[in-house]
Every structure is written in structure tokens, then in C-alpha cells.
């Protein structure tokens, strides 16, 4: 249903494709590994969290053809859950991450089961409405501390060994989580499950006639995407020690759409590039206030009208590769 502008089928990946993607992957890992020695580490950490978030979103939209306009609810739910667990219950960071991710997965199961009853544009509106409902819930419920959010959450010691208050330690933990999430998504896309998902995107009726229970596939894709978005949210909370309403707001749901669209819908590396550009834009242009919103809106309009392949999609198209 959502066409990647060029119908590129990624799998079974040919050896040439695997080589191209392998080179790009090593380049990406190298960039993130060197980054903390070149720029202030908080920035690349933020990029990685959002990149994972966008990759999770891309799994759903770019490969499953399901447009969620409420993905912030998973990011935020995982953030609040892990923050509460780490601060109030005092659990170690690995448990907080696990709890946050599980909470997002559970929410994904409930919302997904209802939302997949409608297709296309309705699916987008339903996820949007659920996200807004969750926003009001977090606004009113006392454990989130409303407008202040859960602040100064301790990072703790990972597995009781690694002291995460050391900047480089937390940096490389985040890098590992990001790479792990990225590889899971890569694996899912190229698995038989991923193939069926793409079939559903291209022609759901035919997939049904071939005997696939498409609703189960869509639900599983939704839960997977929600869990990985949750992992991103919990990791982001760990980095900043903060879970706030920003993470559940509509603007956040829109931002992840923008990152994916700008980087390249249905490409493997697109969401990472998109996250880098958008986070950089927000970091360096934050003093211009509402102009950032105007710029984001303009990018939306520009991408939809003239640049539907996105940055990575365009590069891949020029080089005749799939990235």
C-alpha cells in the first residue's frame, strides 16, 4: 500500500547487495564509534536513540505498509515505565530497559489488535487517536509528575558492573543497543516473515488468497515495531535521565514520520540518516523557536511533492543499489 517509490525487493539479498549493505553498515558503525571523540557525546547518543525509533517505525510503514501516526505512545510509555522502575523501584538499568520495552510491546498488542481492523488512512487516524488518549492519560496520572516529567533518574550500574555515569560507558552501551536493534530489524526484513509482510504491503487481497492470515502478520509487525520503539524510548530515558510529556506528544509522532520520509521510506539506512538530519536541525536551530516547526512542515511538503525517495532512496537509486 505504501510504495517505496522504486519497487526494490531486498530479499533474498544477493551477494552484491549484502556487500554494499555490509560496507554501508561498517561505515555507519565507524561513524558512531568515532563520533564521541569529535563532537559532544550527547548529540550522537540522541541521534542513535531517534535512529532506532525511526528504524522501528520504518519496519511498520516501509515494509508493512502500515502508517502509524501515534508511534510516540510507545516511545513515551517505555520512557515513563523505565524511569519509574529505575527511580522509584530502584531496579538496575538492564531491568528498567526490559520493563520499558515490555510495556511498549504490551501497549502495541492492545492498540494493534484494534487498529488493524481498519486499513490505510483510517489506520493512521486510529493510531493518532490512541496516542492522544495516552497523552491525556500521562498528563493526568500522578506518577508521571505532569508537566515536569520524571526527572534525574539515576543511570545505575549495568549488570552491577558497568558504571553508566561514566560518559563513555553509557555511550558505548547505547551504541550496542542501537546496533542490536538495527540488526534485529535487518534480520526481520530479510526473513520469510518479512517477505510475507512485503507481500501484504503490495497486495493484501492476494496474500489472503494465498492462505496467509494477514491480520496476524500485521499484528506481529505492529508489536515488533512498538517494542523496538519502546527500546529506543527506554534507552533515551537512560541517557537523559528524563521521561516527559514531549515523548508522548503528537509532535514526536510526527517527527519520526518526518525522519523516515526524509531519509527514505523502505530503505535500510534511510531512517538513520533522517534522524541525524532532523536531530541536528533541532539541536542547532533550537534558538529560532517556531521557525523549526515551519522548517519541519516545509520538509514534509517538499518530501511529499518532490522528494519521495528520500536522501538514501535517492542515493540508492542513482547508484542502482539497495541501501
Amino acid at each position, binding site marked *: *500500500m*505504501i*510504495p517505496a517509490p522504486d519497487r526494490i525487493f531486498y530479499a533474498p539479498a544477493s551477494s552484491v547487495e549484502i556487500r554494499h549493505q555490509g560496507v554501508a553498515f561498517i561505515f555507519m558503525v565507524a561513524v558512531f564509534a568515532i563520533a564521541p571523540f569529535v563532537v559532544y557525546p550527547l548529540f550522537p547518543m540522541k541521534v542513535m536513540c531517534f535512529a532506532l525509533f525511526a528504524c522501528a517505525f520504518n519496519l511498520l510503514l516501509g515494509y508493512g505498509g502500515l*502508517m502509524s*501516526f501515534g508511534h510516540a505512545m510507545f516511545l513515551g510509555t517505555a520512557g515513563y515505565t523505565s524511569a519509574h522502575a529505575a527511580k522509584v523501584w530502584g531496579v538496575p538499568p538492564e531491568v528498567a530497559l526490559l520493563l520499558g520495552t515490555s510495556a511498549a510491546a504490551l501497549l502495541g498488542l492492545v492498540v494493534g489488535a*484494534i*487498529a488493524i*481492523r*481498519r486499513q*490505510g*488512512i*483510517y489506520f*493512521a*487516524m*486510529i493510531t*493518532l*487517536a*490512541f496516542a*492522544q*488518549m495516552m497523552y*491525556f*492519560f500521562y498528563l*493526568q496520572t500522578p506518577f508521571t509528575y505532569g508537566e515536569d516529567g520524571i526527572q534525574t533518574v539515576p543511570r545505575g550500574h549495568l549488570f552491577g558492573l558497568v558504571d553508566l555515569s561514566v560518559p563513555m560507558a553509557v555511550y558505548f552501551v547505547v551504541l550496542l543497543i542501537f546496533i542490536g536493534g538495527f540488526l534485529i530489524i535487518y534480520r526481520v526484513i530479510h526473513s520469510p516473515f518479512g517477505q510475507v509482510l512485503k507481500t501484504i504491503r503490495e497486495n493484501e487481497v492476494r496474500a489472503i488468497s494465498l492462505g496467509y492470515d494477514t491480520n496476524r502478520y500485521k499484528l506481529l509487525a505492529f508489536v515488533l515495531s512498538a517494542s523496538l520503539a519502546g527500546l529506543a524510548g527506554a534507552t533515551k530515558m537512560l541517557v537523559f535521565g528524563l521521561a516527559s510529556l514531549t515523548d508522548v506528544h*503528537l509532535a514526536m509522532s*510526527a517527527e519520526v*514520520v518526518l525522519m523516515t*520520509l526524509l531519509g527514505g521510506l523502505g530503505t535500510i539506512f534511510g531512517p538513520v540518516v533522517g534522524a541525524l538530519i532532523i536531530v541536528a536541525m533541532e539541536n542547532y536551530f533550537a534558538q529560532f*523557536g*517556531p*521557525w*523549526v*516547526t*515551519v522548517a*519541519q*512542515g*516545509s*520538509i*514534509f*511538503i517538499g*518530501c*511529499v*511533492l518532490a522528494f*519521495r525517495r528520500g536522501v538514501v532512496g535517492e542515493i540508492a537509486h542513482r547508484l542502482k543499489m539497495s541501501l
Partner: protein
Amino acid sequence: MITILGVSTQALFGQLLIGLINGSFYALLSLGLALIFGLLNIINFAHGALYMMGAFCAYFLLTKAGIGYWGALVIAPLLVGIFGSAIERLMISRLYQLDHIYGLLLTFGIALVVEGLFRIEYGSTGMSYPVPASLAGGDNLGFMFLPRYRAWVIVGSLAVCLGTWFLIEKTRLGSYLRAATENPDLVRAFGINVPLMITMTYGFGVGLAAFCGVMAAPIYQVSPQMGSELIIVVFAVVVIGGMGSIMGAILTGFLLGLVEGLTKVFYPEAANTVIFILMAIVLMIRPAGLFGTQK
């Protein structure tokens, strides 16, 4: 003081009135959304921003040109309608061959730009717009106090909704519109200018949003973000009603406004979320919506 289930009638009818007013706004906005969706197959995410523009139009007309409420009620929808038609011609019309999601993303981008520009110029604080002198004051009905302006909002919105229904269901122009919704190619083959009709429909739909904005100006503050929260609720209303029928959109709008008002009286904590919860329930029982048909 008379009470029902521990709630004074004064409070009950007060909230019901607010519910009806919100319901009028839901009805006007979801009616426009349904019209646009019927013919263009896009969900107009810019609807909230255009509603906000309508309210700002009224504010400018009053402060800059000295044109009062009644003038604004005619001029603002026209101006915003022309603006909307221009957007449709220049941008949206390029997307009809693509997946509907692109229309949603494009109009969302437009909403961001419009809201951002207004925020740059006017900040986030609201500006008040006076109730027109001819509708100032109110009447005591015995069981409650009814401000005249609020009564007008309900009556006026209802009249516009029913007028639109009449236009679409009972006139020749409306029959063209319904035919084009069913099968645009065939209608074109009969020599009817469908692209023009699409542009006019979009203009009319956003004109309704602007009309709603002018109506809302004296009740709520005129502020750049007044449309963005409202539009999500209206989306939920549209999902509940289903976009199949005009009358369905109107009825669902008023009905959900009332439900929201009642919730405010009996269980205020859920007032913000009740519509979304209802949406989930309706989706589980009747996925196509109350008045919709599953294709």
C-alpha cells in the same frame, strides 16, 4: 436547588450546553472532512489550521478593517476557502495518483507551516474576540441561564449543517458531486468539469472550517494552536461516524459533544479521553463506524 444523581441541574444543563456547542464544532469540522474525503480521498490534516485561520481572519477584520462579527462570518470563510482552493490546485492535486497517505502527510506539513508562521507572529497567548453586541446577554430559562451567543452557535451551526446536507442530497449540483464521488471518470465523460468540482469542494470544506473558527472566536481564545488539539478529536469523531454519510457526520458530531459534556459532569477525569475510548469500542463492534459501509 434541584439535583439529579447528586449533580445540580444548573451544572448539568450548563455542561450539556457546552457539550452541544462543542458538538456543533465537531459536526461542522467532520462534515467538511467527510466532504473532502468523499471526493479527494484525502484526510485533510490542515483542517485544524484552517479553522484557526478562520478565527484569526475574524480577529483581523475587526481590529484592522473594523468589520464586525456578521461581516466576518461571511468574509472569513470566503478568504480561507480561496486560500484552500489555491493549496488544492498548487499542491494536493499533484498527489491524486499516489497512495492516500501522501495526502495526509502533505496536509500535515501545511498545518505545521501555517501554525508555525502564526506562532512566530503572535506567540502562544490567545487574544479575545468580543461577543457581538446583538447577541450579548442571556436569558434565564428557569432551570438554567442561557447566554444568547451560545444559543446562536448551536442554531447557526445546525442550520449550516442541514443546509449543506440539503445542498448535497437534494440539489442538482449535489447529485453531480455524489456521482463524482462514486465514479469520477464516468462523470467526466458526461462533460462535467470534475477537477473544478474537486477544487470547489475542497474550498467549501475548508470554508466550513473557517466558519466554525469564526463561531468559536468569541467563546475560545483566538490562538495559533486552537486547531491542533481539536482536529485529533474530530478525527476520532470521523472514525466513529464513518465517512460514508453527510447526515452521519452531523449526528455523530452533536452526539459526541453531548457525551463529552455528560462525562464532564459525572466523571470529569475521563472528559478528555471519553471520545477515544468510544472510538475503540465502536471499532471493536462495528469497524466501519456507526454510519459507514466497509468497502
